[in-house]
């Protein structure tokens, strides 16, 4: 696992990490097609140095970026999905889960952890889009609920990094009720006067938007992320015409009053620390 040290000039990778990075790996920006060395790209937080495009990353990368020295304790790492409905579409749900676990190396669509952020205790739940589209199933709901309990126990702030296509259809009613479950737990966090930061990243849609992603004491987002309740395709079909430029982007939501601020990933940790200190002071 790579890890980072922060100094005044910004981020530098440790010597150990440099050695581990294989030579000759390149990253091509999926937006402007500029090519960078993988290590430069990682150093720049997976953000294109030329066009500022934020490449989608997962819990692993966010934990590395946010927790001091990349150190954290993962919570409930082994929680894995059941198959309460014996769901089968073109594929059995159990098989789909197993295959995804194998290909992604993840147990489900969220990882939760506690660690320090600039010396402050902090609990983060980070969603992984790579696991069935970051969909909200029982495991996601339960892990977030337990992470909130951890934040209450540690009396520290809590953050969810949302990145999800919405509900997990293969868990049907169970999936829907996770929206209620997490919202209920967030109420308990609020009762304990602990801040909840909702960090919305590309994409945040459906049931996640219609529950915890919009309930932050602060709602913050990465630039140009898609944030929606109904996805653009559905809205376009409903209104029967093209959508305006920039519709349902972070910038659009900021303009319409649903976000506190947009933060570049390269400044995320610093900006977040500033916000958290305002609460902790």
């Amino acid at each position, binding site marked *: 696992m790579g890890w980072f040290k922060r100094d005044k000039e910004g981020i530098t990778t440790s010597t150990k990490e440099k050695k581990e990075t294989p030579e000759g790996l390149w990253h091509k920006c999926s937006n402007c097609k500029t090519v960078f060395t993988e290590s430069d790209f990682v150093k720049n937080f997976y953000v294109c140095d030329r066009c500022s495009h934020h490449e989608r990353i997962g819990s692993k990368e966010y934990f590395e970026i946010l927790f001091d020295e990349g150190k954290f304790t993962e919570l409930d790492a082994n929680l894995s999905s*059941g198959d309460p409905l014996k769901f089968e*579409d073109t594929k059995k749900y159990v098989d789909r889960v197993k295959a995804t676990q194998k290909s992604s190396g993840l147990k489900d669509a969220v990882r939760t952890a506690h660690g320090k952020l600039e010396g402050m205790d902090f609990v983060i739940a980070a969603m992984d889009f790579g696991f069935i589209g970051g969909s909200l199933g029982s495991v996601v709901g339960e892990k977030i609920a337990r992470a909130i309990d951890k934040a209450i126990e540690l009396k520290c702030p809590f953050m969810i990094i949302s990145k999800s296509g919405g509900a997990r*259809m293969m868990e049907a009613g169970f999936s829907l009720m996770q929206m209620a479950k997490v919202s*209920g737990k967030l*109420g308990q966090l609020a009762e304990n006067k602990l801040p909840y930061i909702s960090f919305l990243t590309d994409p945040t849609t459906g049931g996640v938007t219609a529950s915890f992603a919009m309930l932050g004491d602060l709602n913050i987002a990465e630039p140009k992320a898609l944030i929606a309740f109904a996805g653009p395709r559905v809205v376009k079909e409903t209104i029967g015409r093209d959508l305006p430029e920039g519709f349902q982007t972070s910038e659009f939501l900021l303009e319409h009053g*649903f976000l506190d601020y947009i933060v570049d990933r390269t400044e995320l940790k610093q900006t977040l620390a500033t916000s958290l200190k305002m609460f902790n002071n």
Partner: protein
Amino acid sequence: MSTYLDFEEPLKALEEQIAQTKEIGDSTDVDMADKVHALEQKLAEKTKEIFAGLTPWQRVQMSRHPDRPYSLAYINAISNNTFQELHGDRNVKDDKAMIGGFGLLDGETVMFIGQQKGINTKMRQYRNFGMPNPEGYRKALRLMKLAEKFGKPIVTFIDTPGAFPGLEAEERGQGEAIARNIYEMMRLKVPVICIIIGEGASGGALGIGVGDKVVMLENTWYSVISPESCSSILWRSWEFKETAAEALKLTSTDMKNNKLVDEVIIEPLNGAHRSQEEMFGIVKENIKNYLKELKAIAPEKRINDRIDKFCAMGVWE
């Protein structure tokens, strides 16, 4: 003119036969009483047979039956026409797909809220097919807070094909509006009863669906997505709606068995739409019983029980 679903057709035939036989009896001297009686018995048996074996997809069809009563019909009947509608979210506009207001339940003030579908083509447009915009959810929350302030219990009627996926809805924060309602309903200090009377589609339903008692009428559905949309996404075709309806376990019995709703209210044998008065009576009695039960619990405990109930939902290993 009543509408008959395909699987209701045998009933239509029998009902017509009965009517004809009666007419013959009335217009001639022939005594048709025995024949009518026999036909009526046959109708009763057939009714039982058809409605006992409904498939999940047929239940979905029942939940959307054009003759099925909508929220206002329940509210007016239950409140004995004392319902006084209150309008607007105090911000943008008055959403016609969401209705609410105080009414009396045998003398006791109750806040009634519900999604409202239209009863004819013109009204369906007016009610936006029961698909609320953010201001509908915000109106509902305003009214729930009003009820809480004055210690009045809340009853919501859920009947929506979904929250409206329009451009303005997104601009005005459909997601935020639903999220806020879920969050706030979890912590309301007064008893909250939520009844699914037709369609319970996803977040649009849950937006007024967090309560101490969440109950489904027998012939309704409640899930994270409609069978049609599920079919189109998972099977990449609209043709698998029946299969999707089965797979989603969206019927009242399945939802109860999975402990995702508290109770099922059994409908009159031929469905809520054919015995409306009886249905209203049953729902009213149930609401009264729930209220009695819930009022005996201290508000603090009621809220904790509500949160615990939803927190227990889910299956993992």
